C-alpha cells in the first residue's frame, strides 16, 4: 500500500524527503550550537524524529518505528533524567573556548568534505531510485531475526550468502541484559563519598553542599529546578 502510494507520487516523496532531511540536519546542527543541555536534548529528539521520517520514506517502516520507540522514547528520556540529576546552575551549560570550536569546525569540515566526496564517488548511488514496491518490512525482518529469510534476494546477490540473524539477535539480547545490569550497578545510590568528592563538593557551591547532606537524587532535582 505504502509502496503504491509512493510510486503514485514520487515528487510528493521527494518533497517529503527534502522536508525531513532539512529538519534532521537542521536540528542536528542545532544540537551542536545549543548551549543548554535540555535544549540540546530537545533538538536531538526532533532530529531523530525527522530521521525516523526519512526511514519511513525509505520504506523501512519498522526501523522508523523502532527509532521513535527506542531512541526517542528510551534514550532521550534517559538523557533527560541525566540532565535533571546533574543539572544545576554551573553545569547546565558549560562554555567551550572559541579556539576549540574553531579547531573542531575545521576538522569537521574536512571530515564532511571527505564523506560527501565518498557519497558521490559511486555512480550507481547517484542514480535516482526506481521506487519499486517491496514486501512489507516487518515480516522479513522478524523472520530474519529468528533465523529464516523470506525476503526476495536483492539482484546481484550471490546465492547462499543471505543468512538469518538468530545468533546476533541472541547476542544482542544478552548484551542488553548485561548492559542494564551493569548500568544499574554503576548508577546505584552511593552511601559513602570519596574524600575528593567531598572537597570538590565543598569547593563548588553551597547548594551542592546541602545536597550532600540531604543525599539522594530528589534534592538534586530541587537544585536543578531552582535557578
Amino acid at each position, binding site marked *: *500500500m505504502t509502496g503504491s502510494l509512493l510510486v*503514485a507520487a514520487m515528487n510528493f516523496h521527494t518533497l517529503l524527503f527534502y522536508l525531513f532531511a532539512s529538519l534532521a540536519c537542521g536540528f542536528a546542527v542545532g544540537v551542536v550550537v545549543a548551549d543548554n543541555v535540555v535544549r540540546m536534548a530537545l533538538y536531538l529528539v526532533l532530529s531523530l524524529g525527522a530521521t525516523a521520517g526519512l526511514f519511513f520514506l525509505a520504506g523501512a517502516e519498522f526501523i522508523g518505528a523502532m527509532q521513535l520507540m527506542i531512541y*526517542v522514547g528510551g534514550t532521550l528520556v534517559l538523557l533527560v533524567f541525566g540532565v535533571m540529576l546533574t543539572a544545576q546552575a554551573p553545569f547546565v551549560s558549560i562554555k567551550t573556548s572559541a579556539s576549540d570550536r574553531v579547531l573542531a569546525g575545521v576538522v569537521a569540515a574536512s571530515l564532511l568534505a571527505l564523506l560527501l566526496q565518498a557519497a558521490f564517488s559511486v555512480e550507481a548511488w547517484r542514480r535516482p531510485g526506481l521506487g519499486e514496491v517491496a514486501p512489507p518490512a516487518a515480516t522479513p525482518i522478524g523472520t530474519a531475526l529468528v533465523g529464516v529469510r523470506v525476503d526476495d534476494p536483492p539482484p546481484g546477490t550471490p546465492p547462499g550468502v543471505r543468512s538469518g540473524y538468530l545468533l546476533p539477535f541472541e547476542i544482542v539480547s544478552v548484551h542488553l541484559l548485561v548492559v542494564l545490569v551493569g548500568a544499574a550497578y554503576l548508577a546505584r545510590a552511593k552511601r559513602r563519598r570519596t574524600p575528593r568528592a567531598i572537597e570538590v563538593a565543598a569547593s563548588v557551591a553551597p547548594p551542592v553542599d546541602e545536597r550532600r547532606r540531604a543525599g539522594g537524587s530528589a534534592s538534586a532535582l530541587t537544585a536543578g529546578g531552582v535557578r
Partner: protein
Amino acid sequence: MADFLINSVGLPPWLAWTVVAGVAAFLILNVIAGGALVFIWAERKIAARIQDRLGPTRTGGRFGWLQSLADGIKLLAKEDLMPEGADGLLFRIAPYVSFCASFCAFIALPFAFDFVGQRLNVGVFFVVAVLGLEVFGVILAGYASASKWSLFGAMREAAQVVSYEVPLGMCVVVPVMLAGTMDLVTIAEKQAGWFTNWYLFHDPFTFVVFWVYVTCAVASVNRAPFDLAEAESELVAGFHTEYSGLRWSFFFMAEYGSMFLVSALAAVLFLGGWNGPIPVAKLLGLSAGTGDTAHYFVRLIGCGNLLLKATLGVLVMMWIRWTLPRLRIDQVMTTCLKYCTPIAAAMFAGAMLWQLCLPGGILPGLSRPAGEIREGWIEGPGGAASRPTPAAARAVAEVRP
C-alpha cells in the same frame, strides 16, 4: 479517495495527496478536539454522579452539555503566563510536543476498513512508539517551568511512562503474534465475524492480557489511579502547574486524545475493531470491498462500532478514576515491574504455545480455520502486492510447526 481524485478529478498526484492528507489531518484534529470537549463534559457529569452531585447543569440546556465549550472560550481568553526564570522556548513548545505526539499517533489508527490516515504495516508499533513521545513534552514542560512541583511531576511521569511502556509493548505483541502482522487494519480484519473471533476470546491468555493492557494503558496516559504526574494533593498540579490558558488546554487535549487512542487501540487489538459482535453486514450480504455506496455505508457502520467501543473504554477510565484512590509512586513502580511485566510475559509465552498447539482458537465451531491464519501470517497490506514468494512460503512453513 486519492485514486478518486487522481483518476476522476485529474489532479496531479502530489496535489491529490496533499489534499487527502489535509482532509485526513482536519478530520483527526476534529476527532481529538471535539472528543476532548465531549469527554471533559462527560467526565464532569460522571464524576458528579459518582459523587452524588449534579455536575454542570445550566450551560446550554439542562445537561450543561455546552459547559466545556464555554470553558474552552474562557481558556482562549485567559492570559498566557510564563514564570520568570523559565526556559522560554521549551516552556512554549512543550504543550505542542505533547499534542503533536498524540495527534501523530492517530495517523496510523484505522477507524474502518480504509478509513485510516496512513495505513502502515507497522501500525501498532508506530502508535505505541509515538504515544511514547508524549512524555517528552511533559518532561520539557516540567523542566522548563522552573518549579519544583512541575519538576517532580515531570520526573514521575517520565519514570512511570517509560516503565509502563515495557508491559504495554508486551501486551500489544500478543495480538500481533496471533494475527501475524503489525498492520492494524489486517489485525482488525482477522477478527471479523462473530464476537468469538475477537482476540479477547481467542484463548485464556489473551483474555488475561487484555486486562493487563487496560492497566498499562491507564498508567501510560497517566490517568487515576496512576496520575502521579498531576497529583493535586501533593504537587499543586504537577507538570502543568505553571501553565494557563490555551497551552494548558493543549495538555488536556493531548491527554484526552491519548485516552481515546489507547481505548481505540484496545478495541482494534482485542475487541474486533470495527467488527460488531454479530456480522450483520455479512449476514445481509453487503461485504466490505465491493466498491458501491453500500460498502461506504458498511464502513460508516464499522466506524461507528469503533467509536462506540473506544468511547466505552474512555468512560471506563473515568469510572476507574473516580472510584479508585491514587497510588504511591513506589506502588506504581511495583505494579509495573513486579506484576504487569511478569504477567504479560507469561501470558505472551502462553498465547504463543496456544497458537502452536491449537491455532484454531477455543471455539472451533465459530472460530476461523487454522489455514487462514497461516496464510495471513505473512500477509501484509495491499494483498496481491505482497503475496509471499514460494521461497518465503516455504521458509514460513519451516518456521511454523
